[in-house]
């Protein structure tokens, strides 16, 4: 079996769902963050692709498009030593407690 991102000619008769969802603010922000890091030379399109393609099959297929971009963003900033997973966990917890 090819890796899950390598979609060409996967056997499927699933009709193409042509509904388009309006983009949420966070989705656009993730897109923008990738672009900003790209302009600073901190991320290339090929790296985004490679990070997305490194997701395991279940994760890849269960995540939405910008969820994959978020997972890839984390992989890249951690890999480059810009942020650590622990810092991100902590920040998430902090933001959640502020929101309560």
């Amino acid at each position, binding site marked *: 079996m090819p890796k899950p991102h*390598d979609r*060409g000619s996967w056997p499927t008769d*699933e009709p193409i769902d042509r509904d*388009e969802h309006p983009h949420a603010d966070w989705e656009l922000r993730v897109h923008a963050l990738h672009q900003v*890091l790209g302009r600073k030379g901190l991320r290339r399109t090929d790296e985004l692709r490679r990070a997305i393609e490194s997701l*395991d099959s279940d994760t890849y297929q269960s995540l939405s498009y910008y969820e994959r971009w978020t997972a890839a963003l984390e*992989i890249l900033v951690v890999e480059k030593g810009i942020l650590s997973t622990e810092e*991100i966990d902590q920040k*998430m917890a902090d933001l959640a407690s502020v929101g309560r």
Partner: protein
Amino acid sequence: MTEAHDGHQHPGIDGDDGQTYYARRAQAIEALLVAKGICTTGEVQLAMEQVEARSPADGARVVAHAWVDAGFKTRLLSDPIPALAELGYALAETTTQLEVVENTDEVHHLVVCTLCSCYPSTLLGRPPDWYKSLAYRSRAVADPRGVMREFGLNVAEEVKVRVLDSTADLRYLVLPRRPAGTEGLSEEELAKLVTRDCMIGVTDALSPVSMASSA
């Protein structure tokens, strides 16, 4: 498996604010990048506006210009980056290459990105959800005529179908056939016939007749 996905639980929706796990994760990453001075909120805001500023109207303007100006069309097909610069589109700022492919009575082009979602965003904005869907990415190469029929386009048997698989480095824009009965139209009127979908190749450009009946 990657470190980021090892041993974490990923609940879908957080009960408190209705935001998903990944939306909150993204918010945390952005907050940290800003706090560390890697980027500013202003830069993110500006990039958001730039992403939103592009739309298929840009591609439609290019196509309509190619329909009325044969010299431009030749330049667009042979060397698109400088040709697009004539209209004010600066693709040279990225390393991405673009190829413009012409649909004719002999050959019809259909664009897909089987691996992800590569797309000529400078001219079309962000890709539609279906372009990124697993179904389109799988089927566009296996059964392009069937896919186009789903979009309402029946490509005649004698017309050759070429499917172009985009990459991170090379994107494609389809130059659709100019519809019949448009000889008297202005460039601006022509641009209204050029839909996003016909520049991907899943449909033809609108005909003035179908425009009138849908109005």
